[in-house]
């Protein structure tokens, strides 16, 4: 179908965009359009005004600092995926991005747009949870920072107020002695996954796990941290038995009901297997990094 009628503005600053949003309640921000245009074409969304933020110079660019990667809101997914500086600071991002849609969609789609869209099956919200990243938000009242753990409220729903926008996504650099892995299972390349697992594990000098961060997409009403599984891993040497126990705990985090794509039982099975595989890869990478 074709999009419904709407008016269209191209603000040149964040302040202008926020003001436009506040002035028209029935407005929506347009970033890469890779989710929004589809909902317009389906006429699921029928806004009075589109606020295209792609011309705002202040929303472009990536900064890789000593502690974190700052990805401004109009940075396309493909730019982050191809950035060697980002890859050097946190290799998890490229591994995750390669599973987000197809190159042609990542050429347009933004990191912030995917996070703001907050699809329960999307990979980037899970990445943000595992890395304990944050988003910088601006509204008519000023700016604030929302931690990943406070951001995702339900499928397609975040804790952003209606008149707030994300100006940047900030992701901590990979910590020392830490390994990473992301794996998912999707029926076709580039599809949203039936289940995906992100794993970050930090080892001490004796090979004991001092910190584990696991998250999942596609298995609940939002991306979720797998805290019960993390607790199984902490303090262990990440031997196979411990990993198997963590995978059992992760399996119990699946709350998605049976749907046309997969049954709950099948998703539990996927989560079990993917958890075992990602934790093992993350552990091995942590050992390699410690040796290097």
């Amino acid at each position: 179908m074709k999009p419904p009628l709407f008016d269209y503005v191209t603000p040149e600053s964040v302040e202008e965009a926020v003001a436009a949003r506040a002035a028209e309640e029935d407005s929506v921000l347009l970033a890469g359009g890779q989710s929004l245009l589809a909902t317009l074409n389906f006429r699921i969304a029928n806004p009075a005004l589109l606020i295209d933020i792609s011309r705002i110079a202040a929303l472009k660019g990536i900064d890789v600092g000593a502690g974190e990667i700052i990805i401004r809101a109009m940075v396309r997914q493909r730019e982050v995926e191809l950035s060697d500086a980002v890859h050097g600071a946190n290799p998890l991002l490229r591994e995750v991005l390669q599973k987000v849609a197809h190159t042609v969609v990542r050429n347009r789609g933004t990191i912030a747009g995917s996070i703001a869209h907050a699809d329960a099956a999307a990979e980037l919200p899970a990445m943000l949870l595992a890395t304990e990243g944050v988003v910088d938000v601006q509204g008519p009242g000023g700016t604030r920072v929302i931690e990943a753990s406070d951001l995702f409220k339900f499928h397609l729903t975040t804790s952003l107020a209606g008149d707030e926008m994300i100006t940047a996504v900030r992701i901590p650099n990979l910590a020392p002695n830490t390994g990473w892995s992301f794996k998912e299972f999707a029926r076709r390349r580039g599809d949203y996954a039936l289940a995906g697992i992100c794993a970050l594990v930090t080892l001490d000098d004796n090979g004991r796990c001092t910190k584990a961060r696991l998250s999942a997409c596609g298995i609940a009403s939002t991306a979720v941290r797998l805290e019960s599984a993390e607790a199984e891993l902490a303090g262990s040497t990440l031997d196979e038995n411990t990993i198997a126990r963590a995978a059992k705990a992760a399996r119990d985090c699946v709350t998605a009901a049976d749907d046309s794509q997969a049954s709950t039982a099948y998703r539990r099975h996927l989560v079990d297997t993917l958890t075992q595989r990602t934790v093992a890869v993350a552990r091995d990478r942590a050992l390699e990094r410690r040796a290097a």
Partner: protein
Amino acid sequence: MTRSIRKVLAKESSDPRREISLSVNGEAVTRSVSTRLLLADFLRHELGLTGTHVGCEHGVCGCCTVSIDGATARSCLTLAVQADGAEIRTIEGVAPAPDILHPVQQAFHECHALQCGFCTPGFIMSVVSYFEENENPDLGEDAIRDALSGNLCRCTGYQNIVKAVRRAHELMSGEA
């Protein structure tokens, strides 16, 4: 008796409009367009460039793939107004001359990589971009399948399209 559904066709709509200027296959174009006009429909209906096909209109099939400022994009998931100031390349801009095929087009022809041809312009755009982005393209099965993953073909079964990608590489590196 047949009844006309709408006797009088609207001559103009009340759609909000914007003037856009862009370059399409190297030619400068300025037009006033409805804000809700999709780039795909702009190319097809306003410019008559009907090589860009429209299959699904929600980003899944890849038939509408064009290049925007040097990177492939879905023209069904882009508004014409978003392309203001951009450089667009469509399938019509791929061949070097009217009677000479681009090596990727030549390879599709040689390898029988199309049947009905509906998906072909989108595939060609994706494959051309794959070669333009990668000086030393990975021609392994997995990499090729990944590069093609954003395009669906309901006829060929993909085998010959994968072959055509490798053949195109041969043609371009002079191993004809």
